[in-house]
């Protein structure tokens, strides 16, 4: 198992404002799989993603990525873990505004000794002609593609996507999902996608539904739809 999550609990606040967001989540994901984490707002799906990404701590339980117990890592080690294993895609892209598309990608190229070919990546993501543009000159879909390229350039073993299509229209969302699918196929990248978009569940290997801090459903798809076939 590439990702092993075992009985993790996470709470926020104290006293009256105490909220337990994760109430003992246990799951596992094989390497190379795409996994969608679904659930309503406040269910704990982003928290689960952030704890796996080493961005947030847990109260108890364990998270192993490629057999590394990340809950025991300090801040420096977590940075190193993220640098070596992870790629992140956010709902609002979080591109560096005063860097061009290519430069934004290069920002993460810097973090690895064996990056993917940037031009190939630009080509795959359809950004070649936009590579010298600044984020403000791009559409939302283009910006998200740029963010995906930035996440992929260091060829991460795990790609964590937090509502990657949340800020995009239908067509742009479809394009992004197709790219995700393509990348998974091309590079074998393990992907965790937190989304509200239930259509996505049909194109992923694994679906985890979270409700009220607990896994309400966890299953694998035996037959996958292509992203281009999805409708919502």
């Amino acid at each position, binding site marked *: 198992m590439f990702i092993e999550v075992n009985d993790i609990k996470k709470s926020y606040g104290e006293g009256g404002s105490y909220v337990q967001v994760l109430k003992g989540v246990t799951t596992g994901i094989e390497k190379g799989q795409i996994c969608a984490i679904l659930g309503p707002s406040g269910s704990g799906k982003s928290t689960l993603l*952030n704890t796996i*990404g080493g*961005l*947030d701590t847990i109260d108890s339980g364990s998270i192993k990525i490629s057999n590394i117990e990340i809950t025991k890592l300090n801040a*420096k080690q977590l*940075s*190193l*873990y*993220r*640098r*070596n294993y*992870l*790629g*992140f895609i*956010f*709902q*609002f892209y*979080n*591109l*560096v*505004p*005063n*860097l061009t598309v290519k*430069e934004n990608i*290069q*920002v*993460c*190229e*810097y*973090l690895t000794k064996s990056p993917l070919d940037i031009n190939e990546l630009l080509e795959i993501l359809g950004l070649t002609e936009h590579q010298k543009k600044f984020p403000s000159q791009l559409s939302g879909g283009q910006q998200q593609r740029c963010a995906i390229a*930035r*996440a992929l350039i*260091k060829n991460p073993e795990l790609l964590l996507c937090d509502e990657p299509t949340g800020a995009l229209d239908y067509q742009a969302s479809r394009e992004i999902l197709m790219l995700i699918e393509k990348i998974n196929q091309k590079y074998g990248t393990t992907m965790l996608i937190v989304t509200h978009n239930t259509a996505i569940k049909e194109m992923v290997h694994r679906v985890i539904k979270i409700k009220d801090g607990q896994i309400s459903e966890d299953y694998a798809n035996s037959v996958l739809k292509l992203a281009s076939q999805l409708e919502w």
Partner: protein
Amino acid sequence: MILNKRIIRELKENWVRYGALAFLIIFSLGLVVSMAGSTDVVNYTIDTNNEKNQLEDGEFSVYVPLTKNQQMELEKMGAKTEAAFYVDLPGAEKSVLRVFKNRNNINTIALEEGSLADQIGEIALEKHYAEKHGIRVGQSIEVGQKNYQVTGTGTVPDYSNVVQNVSDVLADLKQFSIGFVAEAEFNQLLAGDSNIEYNYSYKLDGNLTATELKEKLVDLDFDKTKVANKYMQEIINTIEKGKNDLSGGVKDLADGTQKLANGTSALQQGSNELADGAGSLANGTDQLSSGLGELTNSNATLNKAADDVFQGMIAQVNSEFENIGMTVTVTGDNYSSVIDSLIKTIDGSDANTVEVLNTLNTLNTMKAQLDSYKAFKEGLRAYTNGVESAYSGSAELSAGADSLYQGSVTLANGANTLSNGSASLNSGMGEFKSQVTNFINENMDYQYVNLITFLEAGDNQRITSCKSDAAINKNSALIAGAIIITLIAYMISVFVIHTIDKESAVIGALYSMGYVKKELLRHFMILPMLIVAASAILGTGLGFVLIGENIKENVAYYSYPGYAMVFPPYLLIYGVLLPVMIAVLVNYLVINSKLSMEPLKLLRREKKQHQLANIDLKEMGFINRYRIRQLLREIRGNITMFWGLFIAILLMVFGFSIYGSVSAYVNNVASDVEYNYLYLLKYPMETAPNDATKAYTESLTADLYLTGGEMDVTVQGIDDKNPYFDFPLDGEKNDVIISDSVANKFGYKVGDEITLSDNLEDRNYNFRIKEVVNFASGLYVFMDIKEMRELFGQEDDYYNTLMSDHELDIEAGRIATVITVDKMVAAARQMFTMMYGLVITILGASVLLFAIVMYLLVKMMIDKSTFSISLIKVFGYNEREIKKLYLGTTFYTVALSTLIAIPVSKMIINKIYPYMVSNVSAGMNATMAPQSYLIMVAIILSTYVIVNFMIGRHLKKISLVEILKERE
């Protein structure tokens, strides 16, 4: 790192912000480096010049020139001396020109143009004097009613501050300067002028200290008859006469004492003899008295026997009468008349018989016998009476003789004591005479110590003030520079934080990708470092370029050769490295703290809300509530702005304080000094002019805590009738009244015990401060003239100072200095002129700093609030209301900064200002006129209004769709 590509873009996008900051750094470092660099250039130039031209280690003046042997003796001991005699002569445009002969070894002349005077009738002038009077080399100048051709202009190291007297507050380069003539010319001047000052410069070789040299000079013998100065000669003659009179008086006294001793010796002998004689007399009178006593005892018997004999004779006569038949009876009392009657009766009868004749014969015989007996009886009676009187007298005589004896013994004793005393007196008188003579020979010679003044180079403001002036500027500039750089570094960090806040999610994303804090910290620090480093290099460069401009005032005021540029390493370090280091430190601390937030919080744009932001504002009105909330939200920006404005206001207060201080000095000099002329006399006349007021002036030194050194203080003895001072002089002995100038300069207050020193005499004088009075000019300590004379061992009518409301007719040779109110005011005005440029620069810099700091920070805070502003625009707020909400917040900070910074800055300036003027021989307070405060507030408000106007334009540009852009 590819991320760093954004730095240039960030710079381009925010060029106004970073440009303004860079301008501030360049401007402030330019000023600081130029000020400090000017000091270094001045120091270097002066040090080089001092070394090249053999600056003295000190100087001294004497009444009678040293002999060659004495000079050689001093040289052997380790002090090389060179005569620097001078004479003050009237020069161009009523100025005074101090003429020296050319120097060979010490304080040699650094020519700037032309050559030294080597012929009679030639002169080389101090360069500023020539320039101020428009005299060029080759032209002629009248000095002391003689025409001289100017052969050159230059400077000497011992007159870099060309003041006539070492204690003068300021130099007046047009009214006083120096010139140099050839030796032959100077000898002619010497021959024609008796007011030569025999001044010597010395250099020590390390084997002799200045103190040892001074002691040696005090001990040096000299021929007082060779004192050339006629006034000094008068003084010597007077003292000499007094000494002779004293010596003669003592001799007369000794002679008189000898006579007294002789007289008392004779008296002693006589009184002894008298005592002996009186003793014998007393014994004799005792014996006499005793004998007379015995005689007196038999007096009654004798008298009775005589009476009995006489009565027997009467009876016998009566019996005879009876026998002869005469019926006559006689008594002792009537026998003579009865017998005479009988004889007359018988003698008248005709009977001439024998019987009758016998009867007559018998009668005559009877009468004769009776007369004889009566005479015996009466004689005996008289004798016994005499014996009684003698006895009585002898008793008195005996008592008197006893008294006489006692008295004569006392007299003898007294005479003996007197004799012994007068003998001792006589003997002591010999000793006294000998001692007085020794005293006269030994101690009264102190009047003739040849040394008049002794001044080490380090205490000579003609030499030191140029460097110390520059040093004060340098220290102030360096401190101010460090403060401003720290502020700017902090401001930059605030902007960087603003950027970090703005890009919080991006930074969070970068962290998510695996960036570590170190990499981001480095990245975010590059821009501030670049700006600071580039600005620092430019500012430092500009500073060096501005040195020429900055040094102008110094070059124009002090007298030294053309300056040479230097680039001291420390200044390069200060100008370039220090700002970068400050920026590294400040930015590291601030950015590091900001970047230490958890990635997730950064991604979510979570901000640490300051506790202050949650303050309960109760029922406050909406506008004020909103403003205060905004102020608290932007507390870091507001605090930074507060400090920025504080420093700007501090500079402003400093500028106005310099202006106020110098203006007040000019005004006070004119108003406090009521006499128009003050003559300090080297050689006072025996009788002072009737139209002048006498005073007594001494120059002492006091420890100056500001510099750790000493400063001259003028102690002036005046009397209650002095019309130019209206304070009472009564009080205890050694009570003094000090001028506020002294109080300010030395930090003295009423009741303080102070010690003033006479360095030449190595004596300290203690005084108690009774009162502080207004007197701006110079550093004066006033005391009762009688007490001062007594304290300094002067005669009861001594004076050396004359005050007058008009010019007095006094021989020039007697005068050491004439101080006129006009001169004092002119000197003060000159100081004002010198400071004016500095004041304008400081005020300009402060206004610029104020405006830039305020603009940048307000704009940054507005930028941070773009979303909210856009939102309230959407809500329907108009421009005026938005300005009210956001720019009104700024007003709080500006108002608070102004209210706090003005009084606090004033207090700070009050404390540091004395250090800045520590070498000015006058107490100057950092005074600010009330109108200066109003002007300052007006400047602040005007700047605020202008900045608000500019920010207002920016507010207008915030679009309504910002809210949509910033939706996340």
